[in-house]
Structures are given as C-alpha cells and as structure tokens.
C-alpha cells in the first residue's frame, strides 16, 4: 500500500504552516490594503482558506484512490476547475449571508469572484500536480522493492536447489572414503576420484528441460552406485538389467537419480545388513519403463513419517507430462519397495541431439 502524503507528519506540519501563512497574508491584505473591518477581513480569509484546505485534502485522497491511466491532464483540469468553482460559490454564499448589509464589501465580493476563482484554480492545480508526482514516485520505489524481494527469493531458491543437487552428505562421505582409500588402497582411490568427478560433472549438467539417452543416464547412475559401493563395499549388491532396445530411448535428466537416491536412502542407509538394489529398464509399447526395487525395514518406515518422499518427482512429472500416474511406488512384499517410472516416447519430446 502506498502511503498518502498527508499521513506523513512532516508534510502535515508543512501543510498547516502554509495554510496559516496563507490566511494571515489575506487578512493583512484585506485589512490594510483594502481597508475592510477586521471582522470582514478575518471572516473572508478564514472561510476561503478553510474551504481551499478542505478541497486540497479531498483532492489528495482522491488522487490516492484513483488516477486515470490516460488523459491525466484533462482529468486534473476538470477536477480542479470544478473544485475551484464550488469553493468560489460556497464562500460567496456564506459571506453574503453574514455581511449582506455591508454594501461596499458586497460589491467587492461580486467584482473579485473571477480573481478569486483564478487564485483557487492555480493553487488547486499546483496541489494536484504535487500529489500526482508524490504517488508516482512512491509507486516506483514500491515496485523496485518488490522486484528486489522477488530477485532475492529466486536467488535463494536457486541456491537451495544447487545445495540439494550437490548432496553434501553424500559428497563429504565420499570424500572421506576417498581419503581412507589413499591410505589403505591408493590405486582404488584414483579410480574413485575420477568417478566422483564424473558424477559431479553429470550433476551440474542436469536440467528438467534436457532429455538424455538411457545409455547416458544409466552411465551416470552407475557412477553414483559405484561410489556408494566403495563406501559400503560388501553391503551393497546391484542387479541391473537394461534391455538392448531401450538404450536409444530417452528421458528427462532429473527424474531417475532421485529415485535411485531414495532406494539407497531407505534400502542401504537404514539398515546394517547386506542388501540388493534391483533395476530393470525395458520398453513396453514404445514406453520406456524403469523399475527400481529396494528392501526396507517396515518398522523404520512407520517411524519415518514422510513415506518415501517421492512427491517432488510426482510434481515434476506433472509439470513435464501432466500425468502423475507415470510414477508408481509401493511395497510389493512386506519389506520390498518398488518404484516404477514410465516415460512416454512421444514425437513432441525435445531432440536429444
């Protein structure tokens, strides 16, 4: 909400001073230069100035509520002329009521109507312009603030996304494993470093809009699993089968990794036993079908609360295909969890080349 100029104490003070000075100047003018009685001078000045002040307040608030997009000049002109006319005639009517007997003053009042109108019009016009300028400037700075806030928000979101993509927990644990390997098995350490580097490079390339071939995606997933295999050695067994005809199909580069990550998280991180993660990549009616299976501890799932956290992937599928049912997940046995991802290979998909 844009602040009204008259709601600001400093402006209230200045406006009051202007009103007071304006009043005094006209009292002195009437009394000394035109030789009217003090009563007439004060009454004329106070009535006219008071009405003018009231009109200025109305004008300021009105412009705060409504300003025409086009034809601002015409709008302000009509408005100020009308207000000036109204004040002129009200003041004449009121003063006439009080001082009808004072013939000299009455004739002066009638003669000065035009000059009164012009003075009021100029003053109101000035007031309207000042208000318009005020509102424009306020609006501009408000827009600027909003823009800045929006920019900050999107920056923060970007940063969070990056942080998540890097998976700091995985990264630092892997670095720790590499470090251990440099001591116990230096040759293996070299292999692990290059794998970690290749995986990170792949991570940085990922984007929702970029489709990758199954071949490329599975290489990336394999790197991830290889690194986890070094960390957990004999505890992690992999059973991966990829149908030959699926290799050239493609999928968005951000979908499979979180599913495999989930399988590792619930299958491997949550148990101290040896486990097997199974992956099957097949083609069914020209739809790419990827099936990931991991064991889990039913007791842990109950206490975990959030289930298998696949809602983010569903949301992404909805954005990409408007179809959340492409992801099916659930336990197939008491302690086996299966996630199935289907990717239609329509003509409308982006070229992978």
């Amino acid at each position, binding site marked *: 909400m844009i602040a009204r100029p008259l709601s600001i104490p400093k402006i209230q003070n200045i406006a009051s001073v202007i009103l007071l000075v304006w009043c005094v100047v006209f009292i002195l003018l009437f009394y000394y230069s035109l030789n009217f009685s003090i009563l007439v001078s004060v009454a004329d000045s106070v009535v006219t100035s008071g009405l003018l002040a009231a009109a200025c307040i109305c004008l300021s608030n009105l412009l705060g509520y409504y300003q025409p997009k086009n034809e601002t000049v015409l709008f302000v002109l009509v408005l100020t002329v009308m207000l000036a006319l109204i004040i002129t005639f009200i003041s004449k009517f009121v003063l006439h009521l009080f001082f009808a007997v004072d013939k000299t003053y009455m004739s002066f009042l009638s003669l000065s109507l035009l000059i009164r109108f012009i003075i009021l019009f100029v003053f109101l016009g000035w007031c309207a312009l000042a208000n318009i300028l005020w509102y424009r400037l306020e609006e501009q700075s408000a827009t600027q603030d909003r823009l800045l806030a929006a920019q900050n928000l999107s920056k923060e979101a970007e940063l969070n996304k990056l942080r998540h993509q890097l998976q*700091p*927990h995985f*990264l*630092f*644990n892997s*670095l*720790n*494993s*590499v*470090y*251990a*390997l440099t*001591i*116990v098995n230096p040759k293996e350490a070299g292999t692990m470093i290059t794998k970690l580097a290749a995986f990170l490079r792949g991570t940085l390339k990922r984007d929702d809009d970029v489709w990758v071939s199954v071949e490329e995606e599975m290489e990336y997933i394999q790197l991830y699993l290889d690194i986890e295999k*070094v*960390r*957990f*050695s004999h505890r992690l067994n992999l059973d991966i089968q990829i149908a030959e005809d699926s290799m050239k199909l493609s999928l968005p580069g951000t979908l499979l990794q979180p599913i495999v990550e989930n399988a590792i998280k619930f299958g491997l*991180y*949550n*148990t*101290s036993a040896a486990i097997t993660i199974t992956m099957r990549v097949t083609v069914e009616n020209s739809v790419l079908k990827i099936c990931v299976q991991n064991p889990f*501890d039913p*007791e*842990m799932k*109950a*206490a*975990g*609360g*959030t289930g298998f956290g696949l809602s983010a992937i569903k949301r992404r599928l909805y954005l990409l295909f408007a179809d959340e049912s492409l992801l099916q997940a659930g336990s197939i046995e008491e302690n086996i969890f299966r996630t199935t991802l289907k990717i239609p290979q329509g003509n409308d998909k982006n070229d992978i080349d």
Partner: protein
Amino acid sequence: MIRTILIDDESLARDIVKHYLREFPEIEIVAECSDGFEGIKSITQHQPDFIFLDIQMPKINGFEMLELVEKPPAVIFTTAFDEYAIKAFEVNAVDYLLKPIEKSRFDQAVQKISVKLNNLDATATQELLDSAAMSPAQHRRVVVKKNGVIKIIAVADIHYLEADDDYVKLSTTEGVFHKNKTMSFFERTLDTAQFIRIHRSYIINLAQVTRIELKEKDSYIVLLKSDIWLPVSKTGYAKLKAALGM
C-alpha cells in the same frame, strides 16, 4: 591404557580413525561397531573410556544411541554433513570431527579427550542431547528401550505422556515405555499443534481426545480414545481450548 570403541557404519571411515590412532599407543580399540544397536551392546560390555561416534547411521542415529546408554562415556563425534548436529556441537562446545578428518584436528581432539577423561562431565552430554533433539528427524520419533529391546516409536503413536519420577512414561499403541527425559523437554520438542501439556504431569496427543468434561468448579477432565480420564489444569484447559479452536 585408554580404551575406545569406533562406531561408524562405513568401514573406510573407521579405517582412517584406526590409522590415526596408531600414533597413540596408549589408546586401545576394544571394539568396532557398524550401527547404534551394536554400539549400545558394545559400550555396556566393554565400558570404554571414550568412543568415536558417527551421527548418521542405520536405524538409530548417534544421538539416539547415546540417549539409550545408561552411563555414556566421553564422545568424539564424527560427521560428514549435518547442519543440526553441527549446530548442537557448537552450542555445547563438544569435540567433533568433520569428515574427511584432518590429521591435526584429530590429534587435538584425542589429546583433549585424554585430559577430559579424569573429570568427565555427564551434564554436558545431556545438554548436547537436549539441543540435538531439535533436528527434524527427532521430532518424528522417540527411541526407547524396554527389557533390553530397543524400540523406535513414531510420535503420532504416542497417546499421552506422564511424569514419573526421573522418567517420562509414554503410553502408546504398543504399550507403555519409559524415557529418561523431563516433561519440559517433551513439551519443548514435540509439535505443539499435536501435543498439549494439559497438566503439570500430563502431555496429551490431541488426536486422542474424545471428550472434555467439567468435573468441579474450574476443574476439567479429558477422556482419551484409550478410555483413560486425565485431569486438566486451569492453564492446561486454556491451551487445550485454543488448540481445539473452541
């Protein structure tokens, strides 16, 4: 001889610690464990002077494990990345090592702990566990031990909590358990949208409430789904009313 136990689910991570410890002949590794359950057993059996403890481990994490140990030994925590844990360490000035572990930091921590062993302060560990309980994972579950069996209870399965001397009694779908924490600890850590402290001695799960009745002037009682009546204090009634939107 100073006796220690390594508790970490990754054998390579334990390898580094073992490697570094070779330079400390006065420290003997009496056991290696790959999860919290093993850790508890091993600590009870060997009574080590101090332990190396990883935070993120299968089933129960390092903090939850410590809660279940009767007399916890001195601890050097090791963690790769866990904002909440690191915050808890900093607040409580506890020794912790970030993975990959740097040699000089390791030596420092081990030397410091050798000095500390003589005047071990149990309250420091307790305070650490209290602040570590602010992590989101620990809002959702409570780990308890009953007849030597460790049980992980989902917070939603708790019907109500009752003060019981030095313990808090948890009444759940699967029976009654005791946890050596205070009522105010649970009042602080449980989700206030779900759990309300209705009385000095009682915190209830709102989902369990079936009826509230006036007992005497200014004194109410509440009926839970498990057919148990609990007293409600005056301030408790105000909180209950607000939470239920009455």
